[in-house]
């Protein structure tokens, strides 16, 4: 395999190409926009995390001591809204996806750079409107906005929050649209569909959900806001509307939205598993198509949120069946990842630790989903802590771990500096332990009958709640450590070469950080995905950046 040797060395990269606030706020470079997103998403994650801590502290005791009911209701609602709409959904696609999709396919940028920037502004506008709603008085409907509570009975800032989410939805749509068009039309010569990294397949599937689902939640929230403002109603039973219709429309988006959150994470895991075991992924096409299958099947299962919501028994059976069917593509992925490790050359770098943690936790998260798809058991478990534990296993154990793993993996590419490996491994371990201690007890709480969204609970549930809060504190510390050392490494970290991990992917065949147009020349791809070469060959690629670094 030939390696890429840029003919004209250049130190100019996307970070130092231009200076000044204006050069960032008006940038059309997908890499800079990714960094804008990274900053704002971290901010929202921090706020959501504060709410989470408030929830866990209140639940230490069975009485209402830290928070009273009104406050508690707002805190869990806002935790959900911030985390779902402003962290989890944009997290991986808007940051790592934005940065890497063009680089991995050998393009200079996304197809619509201006729309990409616009999507960040829309995201920020939605965020500001939502923050305004939180500061003005908050919202207490639960992130699900069930009618008629949200339309008629709640006294909080439902319309303002809804507006924030509505606006934010367009950012998601535009990102998805941009990815789909980019992946279809901007691939470098030779980059055929089956040479694409699986990260790209996952983002393609994610984008499909974004463009097909998000408009439905947009119109639903719009109708809800009008109902609340003008007392008319498609969802209001008092005037002949049907509150269950709201739930159908809401979950038509919000169940697939779970796959918006986890599919890009699966894409990252495929990259990490292959790259850190230096093996081509086992069953490439099965992993690739299972992403698409999840995107399609994900739209067929929303009714499992309505098993006890007075949905018809027959619809319940259809949805239960389809929900079991969607488990298969996820299982295929897990088995293929495991098989990839077989006879690999496995290193224990931080990203790989996150990837291994992901597989374990995602297995638990996915399998507990089967409990909720099984009709009779779901009747008992729905709206209990079992559900809370299940989706945190997917979203924190899945998405967040993948996000952190990916961030560490591509950190040298993004910043041109290495993170401190020892701290990385240590914090990955802390996160893993803290996470399990937080959420494993909640499965048990759920089966014992502890309902969601209670801040006062019978005393027999306390022991498990205390365990969970203890775990949350560990998890919180585990998440703070990377925040500190990653910031530290931007300045003091070891300078990274163009290809510090010695990998074949296109994003590693350019300097770190990359130049504004990613590659000095449009690359021509002549190799398959995950075609590993001996490190000494790969180092040639990295040398270029090293040489430059030496000259500094």
């Amino acid at each position, binding site marked *: 395999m030939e390696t890429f040797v840029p003919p004209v060395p250049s130190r100019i990269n996307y970070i130092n190409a231009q200076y000044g606030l204006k050069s960032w706020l008006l940038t059309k470079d997908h890499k800079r926009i990714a960094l804008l997103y990274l900053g704002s998403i971290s901010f929202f994650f921090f706020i959501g995390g504060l709410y989470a801590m408030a929830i866990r502290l209140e639940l230490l005791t069975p009485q209402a001591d830290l928070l009273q009911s009104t406050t508690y209701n707002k805190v869990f609602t806002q935790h959900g809204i911030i985390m779902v709409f402003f962290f989890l959904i944009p997290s991986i696609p808007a940051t790592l996806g934005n940065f890497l999709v063009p680089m991995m396919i050998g393009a200079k940028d996304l197809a619509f750079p201006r729309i990409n920037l616009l999507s960040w502004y829309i995201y920020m506008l939605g965020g500001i409107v939502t923050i305004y709603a939180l500061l003005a008085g908050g919202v207490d409907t639960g992130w699900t906005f069930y009618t008629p509570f949200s339309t008629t009975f709640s006294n909080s800032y439902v319309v303002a929050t809804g507006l924030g989410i509505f606006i934010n939805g367009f950012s998601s749509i535009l990102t998805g649209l941009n990815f789909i068009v980019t992946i279809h039309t901007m691939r470098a010569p030779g980059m055929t569909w089956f040479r694409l990294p699986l990260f790209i397949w996952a983002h393609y599937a994610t984008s499909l959900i974004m463009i097909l689902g998000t408009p439905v939640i947009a119109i639903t929230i719009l109708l809800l806001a009008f109902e609340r403002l003008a007392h008319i109603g498609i969802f209001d039973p008092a005037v*002949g509307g049907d509150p269950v219709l709201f739930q159908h429309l809401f979950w038509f988006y919000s169940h697939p939205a779970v796959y918006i959150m986890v599919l890009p994470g699966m894409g990252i895991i495929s990259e990490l598993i292959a790259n850190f075991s230096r093996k081509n992924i086992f069953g490439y096409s099965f992993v690739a198509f299972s992403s698409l299958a999840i995107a399609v099947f994900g739209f067929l299962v929303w009714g499992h949120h309505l098993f006890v919501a007075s949905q018809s028994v027959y619809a319940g059976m259809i949805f239960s069946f389809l929900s079991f069917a969607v488990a298969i593509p996820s299982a295929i992925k897990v088995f293929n990842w495991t098989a990839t490790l077989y006879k690999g050359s496995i290193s224990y770098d931080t990203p790989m630790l996150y990837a291994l943690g992901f597989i374990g936790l995602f297995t638990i998260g996915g399998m507990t989903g089967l409990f909720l798809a099984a009709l009779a058991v779901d009747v008992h478990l729905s709206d209990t802590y079992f559900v809370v534990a299940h989706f945190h296993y997917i979203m924190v154990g899945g998405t967040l771990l993948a996000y952190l793993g990916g961030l560490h993996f591509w950190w040298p590419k993004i910043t041109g500096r290495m993170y401190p490996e020892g701290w990385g491994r240590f914090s990955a371990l802390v996160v893993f332990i803290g996470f399990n201690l937080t959420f494993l007890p909640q499965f048990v709480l759920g089966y014992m009958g502890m309902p969601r969204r209670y801040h006062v609970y019978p005393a027999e549930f306390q022991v498990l709640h205390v365990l969970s809060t203890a775990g949350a504190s560990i998890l919180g510390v585990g998440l703070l450590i990377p925040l500190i050392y990653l910031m530290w490494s931007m300045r003091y970290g070891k300078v990274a070469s163009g290809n510090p991990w010695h990998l074949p992917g296109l994003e590693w065949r350019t300097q770190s950080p990359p130049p504004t147009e990613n590659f000095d020349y449009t690359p021509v791809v002549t190799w398959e995905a995950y075609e590993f070469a001996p490190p000494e060959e790969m180092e040639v690629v990295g040398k270029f950046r090293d040489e430059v670094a030496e000259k500094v």
Partner: protein
Amino acid sequence: MAETYVEHEVSHPALQHHFENLEQQREAGTLGMWVFLVTEIMFFGGMFLAYTLYRSKYPEAFAIASNHLDIKLGAINTAVLIFSSFTMAMAVYSTQVGKRRAQIISLVLTIVLGLAFLGIKAVEYYQKYEDHLIPGSLIPGNPFNPDPHAMHLTPGVSMQHVQMFYWIYFAMTGMHALHMIIGVGLLSVLLYFSLKRRYTPEYHNPVEVIGLYWHFVDIVWIFLFPLLYLLGRHLGGHAG
């Protein structure tokens, strides 16, 4: 195997830096608009779903409410919009073949027809306003309060379900009108650049793409017209 690199073509002034050539740029633009239209279909889809559900739940209330819409204005508007779609298609055609005069005339006609549609819609809305048919308290001083006799309300029919029809009617036609307004805005931008000779047979993707959008808005109306104005007409026979 030797690495090869693709060189840029001699670039057209409209070619953006990150595309290899105009063909790729055009393909991306068209595909982008189609993907966007998919989101639009799903956006309207939510409302079509609500319409279908409540029409089947309250058929008589919907028929009574529907019969009170002005079928003449509705039909005229349908024709206006179809005509505007035709002129839009002609605008794309004349750009493709490089007939600049025809291109500008077609664009102007499309804008005028779009505005005519919106004007007629405004007249209809005003009639509904006078009949107190604007649902809920959307207009604060003029809540939903139609005269049951003028509506030919039958005893078993709840006025609330009539209101439901009007809410769906205003939500759907309102959203459609908003898309028309955006469309007219986009067409005005097109017209401005056409006058500046921006679009040529080689480069005219914006005209094409905005044309797609305009036709889509037309299609939405093609469905709204029978669903809102026509169904149930044969039951009452009372028009307007």
